[in-house]
């Protein structure tokens, strides 16, 4: 069934989005579509603008050019410094949950309070319901006993899992994950992949996942993209991308130093 037939706009559409900092072009005419209830994994070497791309999706950065449509509404048009646009932006953002690359946990709150925070701010759930939901989320990310600890007492990988629990706290329509698996051991990383798949299956959440990990992409993605030097090198359904012979993609999957992606 096509998106048109179901009457629902795609979750996210980027239409030739460009972003530069000074003369440094970070995103160069990136266009892509993320279907509703799909899992898109964006691969790419570090420093190519993957985090910048995510920030453009939620309006933390404004692209210099192009449109960013979230369920049909253009986020790039909204200027966060204008009060009316700001309200609009905050409304659209409530459809997102976001896992930041370094977690971005509130360090004056405990782990439990961090996960409870979005529920306290945006729902009228009772304290008991919130506590039950927090315990459930923390159990799912493998940290059932961490609720009363402070973020500074956790390892980087643990913080990331707490941040993931916080990102899914409100069961948002779209979850953006900036490198969820980096800093996690392989078993934990696989557990998180299972969790993403389960949330996708049971609650129909749409995921945009940034990753270096080709195994993770193979396992969870139904769409894979590769971003290199600000350009979207390839983008499409997982089977198609895995079969393609694009040199940058092959290099990435084969962990090879020779190919179009050059670091030295």
């Amino acid at each position, binding site marked *: 069934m096509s998106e048109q037939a179901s009457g629902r706009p795609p979750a996210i559409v980027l239409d030739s989005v460009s972003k530069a900092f000074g003369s440094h072009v970070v995103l160069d005419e990136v266009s892509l579509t993320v279907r509703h209830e799909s899992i898109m994994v964006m691969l790419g070497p570090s420093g190519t603008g993957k985090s910048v791309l995510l920030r453009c999706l939620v309006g933390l950065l404004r692209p210099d050019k192009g449109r960013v449509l979230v369920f049909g509404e253009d986020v790039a048009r909204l200027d966060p410094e204008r009060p009316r646009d700001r309200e609009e932006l*905050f409304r659209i953002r409530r459809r997102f949950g976001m896992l930041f690359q370094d977690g971005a946990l*509130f360090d004056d709150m405990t782990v439990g309070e961090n996960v409870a925070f979005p529920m306290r701010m945006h729902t009228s759930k009772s304290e008991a319901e919130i506590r039950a939901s927090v315990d459930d989320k923390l159990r799912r990310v493998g940290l059932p006993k961490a609720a009363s600890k402070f973020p500074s007492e956790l390892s980087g990988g643990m913080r990331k899992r707490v941040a993931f629990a916080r990102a899914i706290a409100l069961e948002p329509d779209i979850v953006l994950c900036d490198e969820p698996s980096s800093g996690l051991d392989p078993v934990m990383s696989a557990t998180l992949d299972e969790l993403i798949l389960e949330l996708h299956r049971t609650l129909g959440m749409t995921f945009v996942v940034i990753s270096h990990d080709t195994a993770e992409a193979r396992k969870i993605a139904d769409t894979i993209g590769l971003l290199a030097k600000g350009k979207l090198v390839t983008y499409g359904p997982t089977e198609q991308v895995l079969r393609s012979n694009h040199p940058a993609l092959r290099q990435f999957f084969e962990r090879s130093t020779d190919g179009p992606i050059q670091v030295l």
Partner: protein
Amino acid sequence: MSFFWFVRHALVAQFTRVPPLDQFVRHMVDAGVGSIGLLTLLIFFAGLSLAVQGYAAFVRFGGQEFLGLFCGIGGIRELYPVMAAVICGARIGANLAASLANMQISEQVEALEVMGIDPMNYLVAPRLWAVSLAMPLLCAYADVVGLAASYLAAVHQLGVNPGNFMAQLRGIVGWEDLAAGVFKGVAFGWLVAIVACYHGYRSAKRDGAEGVGIATNRAIVHSAVLCIVLNMILSAILYV
């Protein structure tokens, strides 16, 4: 982000909705209770000096009986509010700027934004309320400590008649002097908070730990300078 944009939005955030109470209480306690020790110590010494200096000047023409008046007016209207603003302002401003800058460089402010929570409402407004209410209370407290110190020095060290000192305080120094000093406290408190929040808030991730230091430093220096300038303007207005 310009300072004026920030001030305008902070004012809107401050006056259009009720600030989150837990944040308000926490910062009120941080700013108020946390400043008492330092303030007591420094104002006590200032009160002593004020009496000693006043005495040294007045005794030259035999006017030492006016010491109560001088310590009352000079302290309550002028010295103690400014000292409270500069001393507590440095402490409070440094805390606010450092904590907000730290939240910026670790992306906590952006995390709030993505949750659909306006940091202006959630972070800035309660801090503005807390410091604008804590500072006048600190000024009033400083008045008490300072006057007590002046009284001690005047009566026990300089031999001024105690009844006379108190009579001048009660008779000539009025509620309007106290109100003037406390009103200055509100203005200084708001100024300290807005300057500190601005410098903290405009730090960004790429500034790193160094950015926290820079924001803190600017918050302290700018708020001290602005408070002293504002004090002069307010004194001029309040005396007319």
